[in-house]
């Protein structure tokens, strides 16, 4: 991924945030019985304006920048798999329940993603035990010690 291109995308996203927040803030209406109160719009609108100006300056600086370099993403598939598994785990926990069952499965699948196929085949039983130990530790820490019902 090119540094310049990635910077452009990020800055444009932040610029969009600044503009939309500015539009939202400018449409606020409020009532107050306090005298002499400074508008609650003033500070956020000021920040949005500064954000927009800074994004424009940075976009210009990035455009003028001569040198560029590649940002290495050596194992992007593994990171995407982690993100996907985490989203799936959260959805299952939220919508189906059975937290500890899905947690064990989540950890086991993470280990599957992180280890080489050969390694996983060799120590799949150790991974299973490890997932069980982590589930036990989570139960002990959150449920037993901290009394948080998950």
């Amino acid at each position, binding site marked *: 991924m090119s*540094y310049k291109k*990635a*910077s452009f995308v*990020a*800055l444009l996203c*932040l610029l969009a*945030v600044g503009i939309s*927040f500015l539009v*939202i*803030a400018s449409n*606020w209406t*409020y*009532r*107050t019985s*306090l005298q*002499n*109160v*400074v508008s*609650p719009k*003033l*500070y*956020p609108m000021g*920040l949005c304006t*500064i*954000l927009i100006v*800074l*994004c424009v*300056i*940075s976009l210009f*600086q990035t455009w003028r920048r001569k040198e560029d370099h590649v*940002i290495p*993403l*050596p*194992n*992007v598939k*593994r*990171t995407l798999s*982690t*993100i996907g598994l*985490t*989203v799936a785990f*959260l959805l299952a926990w*939220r919508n189906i329940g059975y937290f500890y069952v899905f*947690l064990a499965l*989540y*950890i086991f699948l*993470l*280990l599957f993603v*992180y*280890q*080489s196929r050969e*390694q996983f085949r060799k120590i799949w039983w150790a991974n299973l035990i*490890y997932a069980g130990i*982590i589930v036990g*530790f*989570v139960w002990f820490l*959150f449920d037993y010690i*901290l009394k*948080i019902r*998950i």
Partner: protein
Amino acid sequence: MQYLDLSTLFSLDVLLAIIVGTFVGLFIGALPGLGSQIAIILLLPFTFTMDPLVSILLLLAAYQGAEYGGSISSIVLGIPGTPSAIVTVFDGATLARQGKSGEALGYSLTASLIGGLVGGLALLFLTRPMAKFALNFSDPEFFLIGILGLLAVSALSSKDFVKSMIFAVLGLLVGTIGMDMFTGLARFTFGRPELMSGVNLVPVLVGMFAFTELFKMIDEDMTKKFVVDKKNVRIRLPRTNLGSLLKFSGLGSLIGTGIGIFPGLGGGTSSWFSYVLAKKISKKPETFGKGNPEGIMAPESANNATVGGALMPMPTLGIPGASSIAILLGVFIIHGIQPGPALFTKEPALVSGLLWGFLLTSIAMFVLGLFVTGFFSRMLTLPLYWLVPVLLVLSLLGVYASKGMFFEIWLSFIFGVFCYLVRDLDFSFPAFVLAFVLSPIIEESFRRSLMLSNGSYAIFVQRPYSLAILAIIAIILAIYVYRKLRRNESPKEVIDEQKPA
């Protein structure tokens, strides 16, 4: 004699918190790539139900422990555990390669203790005069100090000042989400009741630091196994040449304490600075980088002394000196305590406990370090694929544990993915955290100042204190412009400057 009130300190809760915090800090700090921030963030969700002093000392102990823990992997593996332990690699890892890991770890632990104690004593004796002086400040000054802190962090924490400022402003903006404190207006809540009380600190921190760091680890070779010389990792305290070593440790401690006070500089800068200075005053500068203990003592003392220095502006001015301290400031606010000069009169027992407790965290780090360093050194052989799932699960559940809201897990995770995507683009995460934590204080001071002056902005330039702070802001901006112009003139010099060695 509230100054010497130690009654709150020697309770089971406090002592247990210090031991647990130190243990977690040592463990997380020892792992390559994970620093004090992660240690604090992982413990943060558990502090909400605790007494304020217990929670603060738990996190401070973790901070201190992680600063020393970072040197374990620096010495044993030659890979710095924390950014401030980078310098320790030069002489520490070289000594380890000579089969003297235990000695190098001993130098590091002793230096960390001295640094922690000097930082703690400075904290103990300087915060009260500082707080007394700060009582002269009112809303316009607090607003300007907040801006000064943000500018300093933005200017120092990234190569790109404008991008740093963008994240600082974004942090301030995220800090405005929720109900307005003066009028009750719901701002940027998008109809979500979960956002009415604002964005919680925990999901932001876990997303920004823990998830981003974990994704970075996942990006690396996770099957890589580190090799450790298991025979020689038993810690050996220095017994010879103590006078000279103490001199270098003292030097590092003073530099660390001084640098820590300035927002944005932190342990990395202080350890580099003290290493360079130690090399200059050493009788054997040619042995630096070849296993000279002085090259371990000075930076290791400096990075632990920085913790005390960085803590100093927090209870006195309400401004943190480092992003890890910004998290502590957030803990104060979560417990309904507003840091600032008034804290000394409103919560004297808490302040005494905090100041004396800081010294205890240094001692705990030393004692625990003696016993667990060897064990943690051997544990560094643990491959990343075992470690990442545990940290990922603890981060997710830590967010849930803080308020029991599922919404916050999503918020934190999405935030983490965003930060992972922009992590190499020179945006400053410390500037964001500092801005986010300071946002309510800055806005309140700004609006109260304007209310006092009937909307006149002249209030920010009328008092001598305000003018002095404005002058410092102008100096920081002038230094930035000067450096920028110099860089444009000689691009090669910049490249050399950015290489810390």
